[in-house]
């Protein structure tokens, strides 16, 4: 079995289920094949569509203080207990967030993470979005996939091209 960080589609759940009996006698006490097929269909869709990482933090604040919310689809117990306080979670290492300039943030992730079976599997992002959490609608945010495990985010003023220092940003990575 794969699962996050892999992309498990409907096929991962096996062939379409069929009812053993002729029909459902008590819908409160039995699950039909049609219902299970809906579960599998929806879960296959989630598996294909969901971002792998959600991040909220600041561009410009170096180190862990730059991150106050971080969740992974493949490490369900991970995250930050309190804003700015990174907690340990299994064997995955969120390497660091380090600002290269006042309006930039680079996040580097491990190249491999454990899957559902505890096997080490490659982590490779295919894309992402970043939206500045600031009040100035002239602000633009851009996200560059530097490598398959590293993203660079920049928040800047469209009119001037200058970085907007210490701006919060919400990031989703697929």
């Amino acid at each position, binding site marked *: 079995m794969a699962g996050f960080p892999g992309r498990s589609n409907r096929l991962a759940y096996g062939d379409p289920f069929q009812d053993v009996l002729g029909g459902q006698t008590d819908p409160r006490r039995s699950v039909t094949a049609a219902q299970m097929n809906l579960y599998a269909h929806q879960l296959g869709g989630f598996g294909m569509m969901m971002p792998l990482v959600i991040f909220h933090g600041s561009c410009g604040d170096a180190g862990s203080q730059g991150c106050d919310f971080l969740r992974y689809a493949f490490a369900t117990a991970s995250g930050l207990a309190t804003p700015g306080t990174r907690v340990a979670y299994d064997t995955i290492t969120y390497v660091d967030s380090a600002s290269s300039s006042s309006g930039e943030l680079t996040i580097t992730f491990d190249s491999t993470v454990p899957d559902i079976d505890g096997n080490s599997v490659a982590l490779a992002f295919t894309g992402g979005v970043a939206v500045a959490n600031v009040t100035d*609608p002239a602000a633009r945010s851009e996200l560059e996939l530097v490598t398959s495990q590293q993203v660079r985010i920049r928040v800047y003023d469209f009119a001037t091209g200058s970085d907007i220092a210490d701006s919060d940003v919400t990031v989703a990575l697929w």
Partner: protein
Amino acid sequence: MASGFPDTPNRTAFGPTFQDKRPVVDPTKELGSQVFNLMAWQMAGAGIVCPRAMIIYDGSTPATTYQALAWDPNGLLGNISITKQGTGEYDVDFASTYTDQNGTAVSFSVRGAMAFGQDAPSQVQAVVTIGEDSPQQVTVYVGNQAGTPQDATVLILVW
């Protein structure tokens, strides 16, 4: 039973790692533990990274034209309160609690948010702030390339 949306239960909430009582003979008529464990893993992971609310708001009218809330999968709840503070500035105010699948009140606060202008030509840009007046608030700012406030339709995602 653990709370589902608006809470985001982890894998543990879905029970231990399941095991087969006996080998699966017909996978089309029997649900093996491997499949069930995958379902639990994916549900936990998807629930954690999934936006909890998606709203499309027309700032010109102004009115909410679409709303989807993860804790309201049947779409029974009324629209989330959105107050237009002025041209291109919209306050989205969630409640401090919402009920989970058990009817239990679960505290709610915004963890992250995004907004995207939807109007064409796409000269408008939307940005958001979190928690200006409360932990349940998202404020959307919409403007043109120079930063001049403008009304527009925006898609808002909230985690």
